[in-house]
């Protein structure tokens, strides 16, 4: 019993930071409809900035002052992000804004590295709160008790702000109908910036508050992201009490998990999320999303047409050049091209889902990494020949996608996206924590192809055939009746259904098919590298694919492939520099602001303007 209470108290103390960060994210989403992926980065900045202030300001006043100042500074950084990065893209398709926040993540990562260096920072202890209190005989750190005690007050203050002040009323009104709020004379730009500042400040506070417990390191941004999304989604997007309750549930669960099921703490969190969403699809306190709010804005898209002869010619020449690469290219060029090809297939499979199906999956790495792991596991544990593993991997990934899709497709919009992310994280944590089978963090190694494919050239041709083949199959399906049905289901579910299309089934099959193709890319990957590590399943990998699809152009079939080729190439160039993330992040933000149609869309627009292509005639 004593132990139980002690665990509960620790869980409640841990909930404090998580709650602050989650409520910031929730507030920002509620008003601006932006899922701010950079929120974890703001949390990380809060920790670093707080650390620096604690180094200079003395005593207890300095310590608590540093925490508040960290909140203020991060709030100001939030304003800069909102004004410089997001404001120019509010009118772009909604999900495009996500990509801008990915760019911000990269920029903040490198800026933090430049300013504070690569070493993990040990958080200073709170002055006067070094020891422990004995509660029912169990030692509880004094700082935990203080955190636990102040969190309800912070929650209360937020609650007061949101429910009892005019600003709060405006925030809630804008959450429902921002256009109407504007038409009543409220300057939305100021409201958005204000909300972004407040949300960022909360993330910063959360980062600084946890310093004595967790310190500061460069991985904090991604590490907090998953639990924060889980909390926001479980609690219900935009609900403060929901965020508090969910933060407590997750933190307490985590503390008990560490004690009783140390191998499955991460898995546990996502299992809870999946269960909650199956019972309450919009979270504990969430409201159903207003239909139409998440539609893509912008011009209606051009009909997809078979490639014109010109385009075909260019593609043929390109393929011929690729086929001849071993004759003139170095083996390094072949390896790099193999990487690019595999990534193109991965991106094309996501593009199929996202562009044609309108199904924004945040967790597509599950099938890519999943395919890679299935192949590696078969080879490692069943001594399977490479050929068999190579066939079974995409099939397994496709089946997994069918199962996961079946659950996720019950939701739409952001909730769908979050649930796909949760499943991907679930898989990642399974692989990460189930070390005896998956090798955990050490990955699985020695997964080489059969002898006949052992040379770089042979594998290059193998990868070329399967990735180009896969892309062509995806393209073919897009032009088939199934592809049309999928697009009909995306554009108007009701209309599609009235013409006899079973939209649910079409979308599920598409999800499975995209998973299969992602798995094929993963299988190619594992045999090209000879090993696989959990990071192939990570959020960052899913983001990579999302970024290239958005930047390549969601509305053009070639978008995924072009984006992947371009960015893999650029990344290869950039990663030679120390601060490549900074450059890459700025590049992404630049493309988002300057070329919101993506690369292919912009090229096509330019071509139409120069009369190379006639509008609507070609794709």
């Amino acid at each position, binding site marked *: 019993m004593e132990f139980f209470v002690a665990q509960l108290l620790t869980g409640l103390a841990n909930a404090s930071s998580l709650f602050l960060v989650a409520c910031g994210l929730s507030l920002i989403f509620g008003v601006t409809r932006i899922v701010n992926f950079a929120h974890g980065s703001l949390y990380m900045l809060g920790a670093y900035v707080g650390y620096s202030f604690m180094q200079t300001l003395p005593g207890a006043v300095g310590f608590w002052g540093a925490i508040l100042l960290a909140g203020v500074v991060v709030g100001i950084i939030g304003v800069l992000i909102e004004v410089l990065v997001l404001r120019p893209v509010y009118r772009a398709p909604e999900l495009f804004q996500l990509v801008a926040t990915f760019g911000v993540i990269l920029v903040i990562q490198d800026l933090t590295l430049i300013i504070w260096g690569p070493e993990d920072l040990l958080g200073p202890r709170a002055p006067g709160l070094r020891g422990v209190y004995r509660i029912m005989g169990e030692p509880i750190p004094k700082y935990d008790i203080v955190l636990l005690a102040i969190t309800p007050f912070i929650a209360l203050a937020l609650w007061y702000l949101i429910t009892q002040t*005019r600003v709060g*009323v*405006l925030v*809630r*009104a804008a959450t*429902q*109908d921002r*256009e*109407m*709020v*504007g*038409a*009543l*004379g*409220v*300057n*939305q730009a100021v409201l958005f910036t204000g909300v972004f500042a407040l949300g960022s400040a909360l993330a910063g506070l959360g980062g600084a508050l946890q310093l004595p417990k967790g310190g500061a390191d460069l991985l904090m941004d991604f590490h907090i992201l998953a639990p924060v999304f889980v909390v926001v989604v479980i609690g219900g997007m935009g609900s403060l009490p929901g965020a508090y309750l969910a933060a407590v549930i997750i933190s307490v669960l985590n503390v008990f998990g560490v004690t009783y099921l140390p191998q499955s703490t991460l898995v546990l969190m996502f299992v809870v999320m999946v269960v909650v969403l199956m019972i309450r699809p919009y979270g504990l306190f969430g*409201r159903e999303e207003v239909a139409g709010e998440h539609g893509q804005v912008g*011009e*209606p898209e051009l009909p997809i047409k078979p490639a014109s002869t010109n385009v075909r010619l260019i593609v043929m020449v390109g393929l011929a050049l690729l086929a001849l690469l071993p004759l003139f290219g170095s083996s390094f060029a072949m390896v790099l091209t193999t990487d690019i090809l595999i990534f193109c297939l991965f991106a094309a499979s996501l593009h199929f889902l996202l562009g044609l199906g309108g199904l924004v999956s945040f967790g597509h790495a599950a099938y890519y990494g999943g395919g890679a792991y299935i192949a590696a596991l078969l080879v490692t544990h069943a001594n399977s020949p490479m050929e068999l593993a190579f066939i079974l991997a995409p099939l397994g990934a496709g089946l997994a996608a069918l199962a996961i899709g079946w659950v996720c497709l019950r939701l739409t919009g952001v909730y769908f996206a979050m649930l796909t992310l949760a499943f991907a994280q679930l898989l990642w944590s399974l692989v990460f924590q189930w070390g005896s089978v998956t090798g955990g963090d050490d990955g699985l190694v020695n997964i080489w192809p059969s002898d006949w494919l052992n040379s770089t050239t042979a594998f290059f041709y193998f990868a070329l055939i399967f990735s180009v083949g896969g892309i062509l199959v995806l393209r073919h399906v897009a032009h088939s009746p199934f592809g049309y049905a999928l697009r009909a289901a995306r554009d108007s579910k009701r209309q599609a259904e009235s013409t006899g299309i079973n939209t649910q089934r079409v979308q599920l099959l598409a999800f499975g098919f995209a998973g299969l193709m992602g798995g094929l890319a993963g299988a190619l990957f594992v045999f090209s590298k000879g090993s696989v590590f959990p990071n192939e399943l990570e959020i960052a990998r899913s983001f990579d694919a999302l970024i290239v699809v958005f930047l390549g152009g969601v509305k053009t079939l070639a978008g995924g492939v072009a984006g992947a080729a371009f960015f893999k190439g650029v990344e290869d160039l950039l990663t030679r520099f120390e601060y490549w993330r900074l450059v890459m992040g700025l590049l992404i933000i630049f493309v988002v602001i300057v070329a919101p149609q993506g690369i292919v869309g912009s090229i096509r627009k330019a071509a139409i303007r120069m009369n190379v292509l006639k509008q609507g005639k070609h794709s």
Partner: protein
Amino acid sequence: MLEVDNINSFYGKAHVLRDLTLSVPHGNVIALLGRNGAGKTTTIKSIMQLVRPASGSITFNGQGITALPPHKIAKLGIGYVPEERRIFTDLTVSENLLVGKQPPREGAVTWTEDMLFDLFPNLAERRSNRGKALSGGEQQMLTIARTLMGNPSFILLDEPSEGVAPVIVEQMAKVIQQLKSEGLTVLLSEQNLHFAQAVADLAVIIESGAQVYSGTLKELNSHPEIRDAYLAA
């Protein structure tokens, strides 16, 4: 007070307003009539800049407003009462009014919550109820009251009689007459000719986004052929 001059508005490629011209003199209630889909709502949204006209100009008290964002237009004293009411359903009646609140404006009535509750007694009893708990008629009153909280000198009323009970329509007519007597200028979009006749002085009829009639309601009554050609029975 408001001059709409040759505006053209589009939804995507659909050309909805065609060279529409309209003039609203100060202190009048002017009815904007026309059949379903004639473009009444689009006209009102174009004035509010919620739909941006591709060409033409709109001036309010001599000032061009076509380049302004909606919140600045509201700040100039133009109140917008949308067709779909668009009250904030999770907010209480009082909170809805608070969203609309703006500083006092010279030359316009400065409304308070209590004054509005006098005007709409039904709302007074429901001040701490959430918007979603209100009846259709109460929601319609709330959306007007919310706009009045901004102390407008001119309001755009989009079909206030639509889908509400006859008693409420009557009450609505009284309210509009009272607002007019207090010096407010009103542009009222309507399909209900009876209602328009009860409150409006002038009428403009539009058809397919272009003006086809402009005059007093009395004149319109003496030309049943126009009425029959452009208005639903």
